[in-house]
């Protein structure tokens, strides 16, 4: 009998929590919708806090204290050019790129013909032959695309992608190529980088303008470009019978 009551109480508590969570989500959505209609600005609902770079419009707590936030995205309201920041940003980017280069290990490698042939159909407007892969100890993990120059922390990834015998095509490789392709589509390195910087969080802009060193991990953050590369790589991977969906 006690067990029954305990289960019932637990069930009721879960129900209450779910109701509250749904209520705070609903409230955040309504706040966002109102903001969109009245201010004609982008707004989205985030579980918990807003991601870095987005402003909190309203927070609706639920019984667990986490809740949902209506997040405002005001990056598009910035001017097309921010001369001071853009120059500082470009300098900072070049500095970062230089570090990647100087901490590079071994010679730069290209994609094998077999891979180029398979991928050409999917990256029709991009010369895959121009891609160069280099290992760099400046990166803690993963890879970083500086347009056609792709730096990776792990030499194994590069070896797998660039070997002529049974080269690997993975979602990670496609992700890096998608960034390189974006760079070309956006009009080359300079334009791509300045565009990329325009959408960085305000705090990083301030850091750059004041000459403070910036954490590369934070520089790497630009939600839409990352998502774009993610979607593009995953969708191409699905259409390739030989693509590895996992980490490599």
């Amino acid at each position, binding site marked *: 009998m006690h067990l029954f009551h305990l289960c019932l109480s637990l069930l009721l508590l879960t129900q209450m929590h779910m109701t509250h969570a749904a209520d705070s*989500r609903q409230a955040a959505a309504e706040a966002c919708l109102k903001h969109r209609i009245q201010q004609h600005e*982008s*707004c*989205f*609902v985030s579980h918990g806090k807003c991601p870095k770079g987005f402003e909190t419009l309203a927070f609706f707590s639920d019984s667990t204290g986490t809740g949902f936030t209506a997040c405002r995205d005001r*990056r598009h309201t910035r001017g097309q050019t921010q001369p001071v920041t853009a120059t500082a940003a470009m300098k900072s980017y070049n500095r970062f790129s230089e570090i990647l280069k100087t901490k590079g290990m071994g010679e730069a490698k290209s994609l094998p013909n077999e891979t180029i042939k398979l991928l050409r159909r999917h990256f029709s407007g991009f010369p895959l032959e121009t891609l160069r892969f280099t290992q760099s100890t400046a990166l803690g993990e993963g890879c970083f695309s500086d347009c056609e120059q792709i730096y990776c922390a792990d030499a194994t990834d590069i070896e797998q992608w660039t070997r002529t015998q049974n080269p690997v095509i993975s979602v990670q490789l496609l992700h890096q190529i998608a960034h390189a392709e974006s760079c070309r589509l956006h009009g080359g390195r300079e334009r791509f980088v300045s565009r990329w910087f325009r*959408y960085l969080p305000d705090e990083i802009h301030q850091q750059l303008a004041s000459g403070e060193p910036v954490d590369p991990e934070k520089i790497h953050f630009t939600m*839409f470009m990352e998502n*774009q590369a993610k979607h593009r790589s995953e969708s191409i991977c699905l259409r390739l019978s030989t693509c590895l969906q996992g980490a490599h």
Partner: protein
Amino acid sequence: MPFRSLAVIASKTRMGGNIHLLLGTLLLSACMSMQKSPINTQAIDTRYLPSPDIQLVIDGLGPCTDAGDRTLRLKSGEPVNILVHGCYASAGRFRALAQVFAFQGQQAICYNYDDRASLAVVARDLRQSLDSLAGLTGHPEITLIGHSQGGLIARHALTTGIAETSDLNQTRQQLITLSAPFSGIRAADHCASHTARIISLGLVIPICMAISGDKWLEITHASDFIRRPGRLHPSVEEHLLIATDEAGSCRTRTDDQCREDDYVFSLAEQKLPPTLTSPLVRQITLKAGHTEIVGIGEHIPEVLIRTLQEEGILGKPEPARMSAYDNLLKTLYLSEWGRTATRNLNHVPARIHSD
């Protein structure tokens, strides 16, 4: 009498060229040869859908019925299929297809718009609504399915004009167009013809506007909307272009005699300009009539349903639910439209080819 038949009569009689021209202008819209869809206010049976955790009212978007309540009840984060109707139709036109999605536990909603408005304006509004939907419901996967003119609008809504920072771009998107006239509507060529304007003493334009509304020029091959439609935004995963070979199809039949054909657009009209073909676009050609493809009258859209299932867009029913599924299709498409005939649901879809 359909306008197509009027034109045939005009060409067979000794009427003057001007009359033929004016009649020709009446052919400017495929909508003209279509019947207005019946109003369908029946609610969607939601028992197989995930429990909604959010209620929203977003311009244009709503349940696939013609009922007054346009509140969306969705489970956030779950994929959403959005159906965009063609001309002379409404959200209720896709009520049955939305119910088929719901039977598989998949959320499907409809975009309702004024089918006489400018296509570019409607596409812009759709884009804004999709952006709101994406931002407010946890950036779910979005599959946009547009039929006929709805296909043109759906594609335009996903082109590169979308702001880079929009919520829609954070969302995985897929586009499916059905029988959409990407090369312009041939019957509307007169509207864009300078010669026709001169010969008709300028009458062509008001006639075109009166018949088609603000989109009168956009549906012609000469418009920017058709000639420079813009590239799909890179965040669109794929454009599945389903063209229909409508030759010999029949919309309504009486005693085994075809009373009205279902041929609206040729394959040439549905062809995407070569400059827009890319690996993102995959084309499939199906043998089906223009309205038959989405199911109307006595037609169960078997070909479309099978294709969507093969493409992984619509779930396949488990064997244990097959009988219930067959009954659902019969109820939805045959009873709803007041038909009693049954059809064999097991024939293989007539896929002609795919690229």
